[in-house]
């Protein structure tokens, strides 16, 4: 799974390069060549040229709204100040206590908030 260059990756890259150039030239032809010329070539069922302008406009507005939407979704999903999600969650409630071993580093666990507060804010004399 290394990101090193491989022959297959080179082929995929070149195919995508050619495909994207082809798509771009096709888009320019669709947008700029007059309809009568396209009809005379027999291409009568292409979408309206209105969409050659409308789709990029839609895309840019969607990207702009996406920034605002992401911001808003983040704000909505932060837990309010009065919910228990700020203190504990399912994993912390169901954790099992490992046995205490002498001279070993204590096992990793979620320490209850009362204990943390006592350690931080009540100085032991």
């Amino acid at each position, binding site marked *: 799974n290394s990101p090193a260059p491989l022959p297959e990756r080179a082929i995929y890259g070149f195919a995508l390069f050619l495909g994207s150039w082809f798509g771009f030239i096709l888009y320019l032809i669709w947008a700029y060549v007059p309809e009568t010329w396209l009809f005379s070539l027999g291409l009568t069922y292409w979408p309206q040229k209105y969409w050659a302008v409308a789709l990029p406009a839609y895309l840019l507005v969607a990207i702009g709204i996406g920034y605002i939407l992401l911001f808003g979704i983040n704000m909505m999903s932060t837990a309010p*100040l*009065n919910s228990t999600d700020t203190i504990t969650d399912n994993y912390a409630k169901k954790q099992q206590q490992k046995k205490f071993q002498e001279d070993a580093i204590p096992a990793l666990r979620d320490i209850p908030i009362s204990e943390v507060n006592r350690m931080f804010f009540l100085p032991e004399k």
Partner: protein
Amino acid sequence: EERWYRSASGAPLALRRRQHSASCRELALRCPRLRLRSLSAATSAAWLAAYGLFLLTENSTVLSAAIIITMIGLIMYLHFVKIDQESLLVMGSLGIQVTSSYASGKESTTFIEMSQVQDVVINEAIHMQKVIYYLCILLQDPGNPQGVSEVVPLFQSSKPRLDCLIEVYKSCQEILEQRKMAPQSS
């Protein structure tokens, strides 16, 4: 005694501690009063906007509507939004009482029985693109003695900073420790 601290937004707050007895303490946090300059700035801005609308629409009811709206808005702000003082009364073995008094004189009180209170802690949480410290009461879960059923945040509108919260926390813990040491009577 009274001491001065700062709120999270920088406004000065006054914390007053009173010891009524060995197991009863009251902590009152006074918020800054409504300033005359911000009140007159808001009123002038609203009335200038209304005058601009009046010049545009040539309708004089816009002016009287603006006056009435600013009056009613000010009264509702003083009665429902602007908190003057928030106080915490901790009575060992009885309960905790939280009072908020508004600028119009209204007081709203909440009392929590001591058997429901598991602990009073300082918690950190994300609030509007900031991480703030706030004091909260943890209510006990009736089924599970270690569990927390509800979190009641305190001092929500004054939002004191950590130094003030540590003082309040230490005062509350001195009273709450007494109930662990004397569990003879329920």
